[in-house]
């Protein structure tokens, strides 16, 4: 086999060189940002996910854009207020992480984007995110904005069939996208990450590493 391969290489040197260069380039491209930075416990998504960008309505009915949250660490999460388990659990984890951070928490914003704008009016959102802390902001997209966001962050959601009272559940993404002060995507917090892990990685990001 090695004899055969070296034969191939001897006969086709330019091809082999080209192939080696190509393979090197591809693997470095793919390895560059993939995998987990030993620095962080959460999933490193630097360079993989689009920078923070949106134009939405906040819980007070005001139009906001990503620029309004520059210089803060932004935790972007998609959910809905009638979510029975996953959203409250995740938001509680994030709230606990922020309590752990202490005064540094003022440099962090948790943006809760509802995937159920029909039921989640701005008033409902305001009451809901108020339960978790002052760093939490409720954002309400219209249908077009929600579709744009789902394309930009490659997330899916779908509405279950309503029961006889008209109540329905919404299946949605579970991840928390974390952006640095320049709006670049940095980390992904998953549902199995605990508050201590989130807090220590946020601290590293705040330290500018």
């Amino acid at each position: 086999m090695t004899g055969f391969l070296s034969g191939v290489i001897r006969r086709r040197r330019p091809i082999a060189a080209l192939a080696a260069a190509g393979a090197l380039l591809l693997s470095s491209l793919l390895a560059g940002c993939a995998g987990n930075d030993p620095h962080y416990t959460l999933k490193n998504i630097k360079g993989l996910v689009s920078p923070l960008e949106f134009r939405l309505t906040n819980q007070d009915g005001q139009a906001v854009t990503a620029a309004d949250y520059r210089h803060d660490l932004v935790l972007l999460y998609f959910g809905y207020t009638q979510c029975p388990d996953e959203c409250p659990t995740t938001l509680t984890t994030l709230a606990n992480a922020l309590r752990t951070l202490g005064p540094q928490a003022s440099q962090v914003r948790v943006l809760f984007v509802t995937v159920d704008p029909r039921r989640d009016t701005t008033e409902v959102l305001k009451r809901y995110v108020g339960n978790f802390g002052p760093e939490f902001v409720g954002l309400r997209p219209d249908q077009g904005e929600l579709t744009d966001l789902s394309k930009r962050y490659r997330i899916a959601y779908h509405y279950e069939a309503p029961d006889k009272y008209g109540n329905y559940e919404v299946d949605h993404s579970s991840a928390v996208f974390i952006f640095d002060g320049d709006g670049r995507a940095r980390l992904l917090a998953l549902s199995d990450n605990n508050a201590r892990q989130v807090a220590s990685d946020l601290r590293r990001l705040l330290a500018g590493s």
Partner: protein
Amino acid sequence: MDRLRGAPKVAWYDGLMPPLVTDLRYLLPWQFSPTVFVTSVVIVTLYLRGLLALRRNADPVGFWRAFTFLLGVALNYAVLQTYVDYLSQHMFWIHRFQHLILHHVGPVLVVLAAPERVLRAGLPPGVVRRVRIPAWIRRPIQLLFRFLQHPVIAPTLFVGLIFFWLTPSIHFTAMIDTRRYLLMNWSMLADGLLFWWLMLAPRQAQGSAAIGYGWRLVILSLVAIPQLLLGAYITLHSSPLYDVYAICGRAFAISPLDDQQIGGLLTWIPAAMMSLVGIITVLHHILHDPEATAARRRGGFTPPVQAAGGARSGATA
């Protein structure tokens, strides 16, 4: 499909669009790709022009041949530029279906139709005469092509790409990063066309890249094995291998293991069936190839099959 419509019947944005428009939405691209669009339009236009030109020259192309080619192009377009693309990003088994089309079914249909002659006939005559590709562009492309069509490299690449993009950590980044997602799909389609052309095109059409029909039978059998093993591994694995679909959300309700098992089966059975289709096609070539005897004399490995039906040489071209 009602579930996919994505909203309860009374949603506040319902009624803004008439039902027909809501349905047509599924035929529109989820993320529009000018490359796919322009390439498809150019290829289909050339092909249709070629069909007309050949008909004028009293050399018409059979209906099923044209149908096979256009179906292959249409399937590739459909999995890249309709709602299927959205579903592929958010459901493992639909992603496997998408790659079954891009890497196997679509290219096989295109190659079986042997469209080169028709496409050439569809080129504006001026283009054929005037355009000369300079050597500094042509040479590297030829080298790269010869490398990719090497009888060891081509099957290694064909199987390697499947394993590469299905490595869980790499699969995760391909699904979360739009650029890698596009690279993944393009690499599958390009490799599918190269591999199946090398395996299925009649030797007369392949020029210097041609490898003997006997070797093709060996390669087609060998590439089926790792696909069978990988498909079985995914299908029978008792925990979810690809967490990205839970993290980013699934397009509709299905348990992660059901999703994985259907996806595994699609990697397992139809992919291996395509090797069988390939083998039957190659056997057909052997039976109808006027050069089969000549090739045996040149020392190519070809099973001792009577080169019967040599008179029907044009049948496979």
